[in-house]
């Protein structure tokens, strides 16, 4: 093994390519190869990368799962998955070449023989496909399987720490279900892996629009000077979806909106929109700033939770003209379930930039539409010199649309044409779909390549995960201590429980209608 810490000079031939750093040859091992995540996200992303030549030619994908499957059958399943879910559909030549990369190892994850056979299989891939001993292990398995699986890999000597060949492990959220279990998971991971081998995937960070937050904030002189308590009245972050639990009732009963969305995706959005500018755009400097921000958020006391957090659960209703059942009528859900399908928070950040500026966050299922956005509402002007219809001057709002219809809009006041001075709010709109010709890569594509080149900037670090759970823990504890008496408290197809409005108190603010 090459000694750790030797810096390899940049490849001069990669300069000016679509990616300055291209992945080295490697074997990409998917644990949970027969699962939903593999079919819907991983294989389509890998194929799209392959098709666009963003993967090395010397590459192998090894699927590992419990069932027995021949390589040919795995390739057939992969092709069907890419055809159904991929943005790049399998075409003859490109697919045939990709299919040659695919192979399968069946076996139980509890069985040491599985790892022995996998080890032999990977050595064969090294010699036949030139994968050079580099490994990415993607754990597309339930979180409870992470620790024992990683332990088995360690016992089999398959996760040695080194720069070349490298071994990296990707795990997906949830990273624990509270601070205690998140810490325990981090400790267990650290027994086998070092932190720079662990890539905690939150696919939100792979979205172009989320990454554009960095550029928007730190590459435009227009906005950063007003990005503070002197100019910003408040910020609203919304992650809404019209779907219910989609057959995952049993999973959702263990999660809830706070754990499923707020602790991870929304904390990422919050930290990106509110963090201080990093000195350089490096993994640790960016993540240091995110952690600093999360640690600056006021941690609610048990008494404060009721004033700064609202939970909800959807009842039956209508979405897009179709009748839909309530959460408690979903398969796998208890008839008296106290699990929240909606969560709204009012957070305050105790630092110089944001003191006194509330951040309102809400996430929910069975809301009227699918939308993820960050809305920054600016303060109203201190004085309006137009006597007539002055009351109609609305505050300026900048909306960063994460999905769908990705883009940025700015709402401001304009004079209505005519003899009188009448004001009307108008919108300037930037849309990714129309301003840039090329189709952006899917979040998984971006993050898979980042992992292969060893760039963890867009992955969560252990301390970042713990900082986010630190904020959630008092809310989870307070909610666990008091069963909700009013569930279900919002109809499907509405914007959540009426009680969410109480987060604004007596302030002249309201939830946006995205």
């Amino acid at each position, binding site marked *: 093994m*090459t000694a750790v810490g030797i810096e*390899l*000079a940049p*490849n*001069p*031939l*990669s*300069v*000016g*390519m*679509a990616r300055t750093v*291209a*992945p*080295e*040859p490697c074997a990409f091992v998917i644990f949970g190869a027969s699962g939903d995540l593999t079919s819907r996200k991983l294989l389509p992303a890998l194929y799209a990368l*392959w*098709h666009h*030549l963003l993967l*090395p*030619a*010397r*590459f192998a994908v090894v699927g590992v799962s419990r069932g027995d499957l021949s390589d040919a059958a795995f390739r057939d399943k992969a092709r069907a998955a890419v055809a159904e879910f991929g943005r790049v559909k399998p*075409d*003859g*030549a*490109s*697919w*045939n*070449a*990709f299919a*040659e*990369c695919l192979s399968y190892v069946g076996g139980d994850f509890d069985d040491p023989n599985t790892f022995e056979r996998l080890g032999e299989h990977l050595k064969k891939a*090294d*010699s*036949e*496909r*030139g*994968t*050079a001993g*580099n490994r990415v292990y993607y754990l597309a398995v339930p979180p409870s399987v992470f620790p024992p699986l990683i332990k088995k890999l360690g016992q089999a000597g398959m996760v040695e720490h080194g720069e*070349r060949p490298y071994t990296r492990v990707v795990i997906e959220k949830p990273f624990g279900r509270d601070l205690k279990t998140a810490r325990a998971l981090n400790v267990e991971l650290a027994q086998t892996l070092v932190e720079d081998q662990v890539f905690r995937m939150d696919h939100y960070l792979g979205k172009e629009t989320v990454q554009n937050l960095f550029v928007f904030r730190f590459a435009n002189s227009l906005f950063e000077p007003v990005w503070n308590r002197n100019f910003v009245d408040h910020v609203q972050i919304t992650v809404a979806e019209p779907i219910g639990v989609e057959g995952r009732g049993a999973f959702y009963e263990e999660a809830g909106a706070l754990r499923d969305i707020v602790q991870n995706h929304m904390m990422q959005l919050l930290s990106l929109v509110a963090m201080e500018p990093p000195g350089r755009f490096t993994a640790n400097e960016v993540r240091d700033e995110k952690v600093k921000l999360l640690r600056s958020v006021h941690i609610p006391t048990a008494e404060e939770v009721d004033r700064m957090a609202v939970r909800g659960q959807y009842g039956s209703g209508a979405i897009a003209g179709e009748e839909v059942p309530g959460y408690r009528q979903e398969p796998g859900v208890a008839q008296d379930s106290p699990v929240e399908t909606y969560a709204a928070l009012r957070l305050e950040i105790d630092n110089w930039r944001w003191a006194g500026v509330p951040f309102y966050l809400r996430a929910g299922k069975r809301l009227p539409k699918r939308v993820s956005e960050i809305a920054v509402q600016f303060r109203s002007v201190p004085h309006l010199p137009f006597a007539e219809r002055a009351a109609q001057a609305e505050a300026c709002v900048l909306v960063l649309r994460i999905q*769908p*219809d990705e883009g940025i809009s700015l709402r401001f006041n304009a004079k209505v044409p005519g003899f009188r001075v009448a004001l009307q709010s108008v919108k300037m709109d930037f849309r990714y*779909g*129309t*301003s*840039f*010709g*090329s189709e952006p890569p899917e979040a998984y594509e971006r993050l898979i390549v980042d992992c292969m080149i060893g760039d963890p900037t867009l992955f969560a670090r252990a301390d970042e995960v713990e900082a986010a759970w630190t904020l959630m823990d008092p809310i989870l504890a307070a909610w666990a201590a008091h069963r909700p008496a009013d569930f279900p408290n919002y109809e499907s197809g509405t914007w959540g429980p009426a009680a969410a409005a109480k987060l604004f108190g007596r302030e002249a603010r309201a939830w946006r209608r995205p």
Partner: protein
Amino acid sequence: MSSAADVLRTEDVPLDAIEPALRALWRSLSAGAPAEGRPAITRVITMNLVVLAGTEADAEHALELSGRLAERHPSRVILVRSRSGPEKVSAHISILCHPSDGGRQLCSEQIQLVTAGKTALRIAQHVAPLFVADVPVVLWLPRHPLLLPVDEDLLAMADRIVVDARSFPETEAALDRMTSWLESRREVVDLAWLRLERWRALTAQFFESADSRHDLDVLEEVEVRYRTSREGSPEGRVEALYFLSWLASRLGGRWEHGAVRSAGVDRFGALRPNHTRVEMSLVAVARTEGACGDLAGVTLVADGGRCRYEIARVEELEVAEVVVQAPRAGPAPVRVGFPTSHPLELLSLALSGMPSDPLYAQVLRGARALAEGR
């Protein structure tokens, strides 16, 4: 990729009435959309795309391509075609729309100018008033510019010039012309250079791993094979010259001696800063099918012949075989998909918002020096 746009409205207008006519068209389309049961329309213009068409066939082809491009690159397309006849300029305007998310239609514009007689010599004056402000001007020359009425005024207006060196009858002429544009501080995008993206990516990949990176320092031979209609012909060499020039520039090479040509092979030598010599050769391969100028294969040999890296394109299968013969590498060839670049994809790439490519300027100058045997 992109589908053809719907042409919503089109009409002939006098040259001095283009802007008011377009405004009127937009107004009537916006007002009429709900009543006619059509989705609301949004005008999107991200660039002025000026296309000089040499022939009627070029014009039709350019119109078709730009219509398809409108979805990815909504623009004000100004297509200029010249005809014989009495001195006259006529104009024809169209609005093109594509459906988009959210039930809207995104629409852009096409203006066709037909010039005849001496008016064909004053294209810059005709198009300048038509540019939409604050968006770039891209000049696309689908044919060899010596056959088009390209003048300095028109070039001076362009933020970017898009050409295809393959459309030039001679490699040297293409490289000369593009070098002169670059020297006049113009941004040039050559589709022939963009076609090499996959070749460059695959070649770079050979040396991504620590095991092989050292081989770049001890590279000794490079052979680039390109397709031509007959062996020994200079036709279609431009991509091969670009490739060699790119490799030499990345390796920090200085040409040591000029080209020596024999039996369809051009040989060049380069001396690198580490005082090692790289022998490079261009080999013309008789074309069986596909376009001339496409590369057929690349071979790199390093370290006294102990390491050999090869990419061989199997055109009919649209794949490339990648072979590494090195002490630590797997011996078996692996295949990667290698489809023929579609003109629409290349053009879309050429129009994309990427900043100018400083590497290309270096490669172009190197290729010109190679072509001249310097």
